């Protein structure tokens, strides 16, 4: 579904691309990966799903398989153990994919900088599209980060895949 046939006339391609962006922006599916976090960020991500914050009203859904996900939400610094798994989860996700680093740890290694088993922030291993600082960031901040990321998708000119 993600590849638009090459031979189509341009207006068609543009329309299909617009449709894809619309679908993506309105209902991004996210997967959460913990590569060594202290739980603090994880419970705040979980809190965003619960009645007070309720991200599902924006169409954001947290689900289990990387193969169904558009957005990878990462928490925690990358430990040597989790490094390969993080890469693998990222590789399993279909294109286009976006990565959000939640928390100071995911952004830079945070308080764990210098610990022997910590490789640093998420961007040491995979490319990151959005950073949400805070230790842990408030649920509102997490939602704001996701919404901003989606906003930036919308602004982008729909690119024609070759």
């Amino acid at each position, binding site marked *: 579904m993600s590849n638009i046939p090459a031979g189509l006339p341009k207006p068609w391609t543009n329309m299909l691309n617009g449709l894809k962006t619309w679908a993506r922006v309105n209902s991004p599916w996210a997967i*959460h*990966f*913990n*590569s*060594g*976090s*202290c*739980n*603090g*960020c*994880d*419970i*705040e991500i*979980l*809190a965003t799903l*619960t*009645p*007070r914050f309720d991200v599902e009203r924006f169409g954001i859904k947290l*689900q*289990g*398989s*990387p193969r169904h996900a558009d957005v990878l939400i990462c928490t*925690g*610094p990358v*430990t*040597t*153990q*989790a*490094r*390969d*798994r993080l890469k693998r*989860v990222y590789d399993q996700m279909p294109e286009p994919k976006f990565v959000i680093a939640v928390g100071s740890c995911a952004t830079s290694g945070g*308080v*764990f900088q*210098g*610990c*022997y*088993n*910590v490789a640093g922030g998420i961007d040491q291993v995979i490319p990151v599209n959005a950073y949400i600082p805070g*230790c*842990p960031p*408030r649920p509102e901040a997490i939602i704001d980060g996701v919404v901003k990321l989606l906003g930036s998708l919308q602004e982008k000119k729909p690119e024609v895949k070759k």
Partner: protein
Amino acid sequence: MPGLQKEKFIVPIGPQHPALKEPAHFEFTVDGETVTSASVRFGYVHRGIEKGTENRNWAQAMYLLERICGICSHVHSTTFALGVEKLAKVPAPPRAQAIRQILLELERIHSHMLWVGVAAHEAGFETLFMYSWRDRETVMDILETFSGNRVNYSANVLGGVKYDLGPAQTDSIKRGLDYLEERLHYYMKIVNSDESFLRRTRGVGMMTTAQAEELGAIGPTARASNVARDLRVDSPYLLYEQFPVTIVLGSTGDLQTRFVVRIQELFESIRVIRELVNHIPGGDLTVRFPRRIPEGEVVMRTEAPRGGLFYFIKSGGGENPVRVKVRTPSLRNFMSVLVGSVGHQLADVPMILSGIDPCFSCNDRMIVVRREPGKETAS
């Protein structure tokens, strides 16, 4: 086919798995749907915190240790602070102790409610999950009025606390607890009477008193099996002597009892917090604390929401700790999952696992490096 009979079927779960919020790897050997043996592998979130403390000074180490676990963060920093204060022979003033204790009990409420939600979610009981997390926000609000932070409050400093209990906090605590108490009665009713819930929990993950003793279970998991073990009572710290809690015990040791015990403990916590707020000692919040801690070793034990927490702290007389050793409760309870899941249906395993309130970030205190020939990465 001959030989097929003997083959085992192993179901691997994790490290990244929808039922687990944190990475761990389980292998369940199954015969049909029944689990015949289980094993676990940890270490995905091992960060090297204990070693990390040795390169930080005492105050910095406390902030690092607070981040061992985001759910029970305050108990880690309090235990460390208490230990270091014992080494330095500079105790924190009584008002600071009381505030620490209030925060500890608030933390227990938030942790247990979180667990009620997660465990209900594993049982497929989404409504209770949403309810308990909604009500948990009340505690989060209280914690926020205290410290401005929802999760890692960093309320402790060595020799005291940073935040005072003013009228705003007292007010939010009183109102919040009234509301929570009412809700908890409702949860208690649900876990004792809802038919579909009882079917999922009664008799599942059973652990007898003898088993609990043998497997070394602690915390609410053990107390649900009628093992009276609670460090708040057994070796009181802070102001638990003046404001004691009563141990809540269950008798059957199945999942349903664990629900009941945990909810009952919350009533205890609420009572203690109310008493503390009403009779809080006056005085300073901090004392002057030395930069260097005299040489020596100390052991500090406290009761975290999941069970006994153990700290060993060694000072060489300098500005950094020489050795900090932490033993967290979750690891002790894991044996009960591995033993308890044998004989159960595979579908019950997530319930049994969540029954001990597992927390992996504090488990992963060690790493076994095994380099296989030809492989670059350690596993």
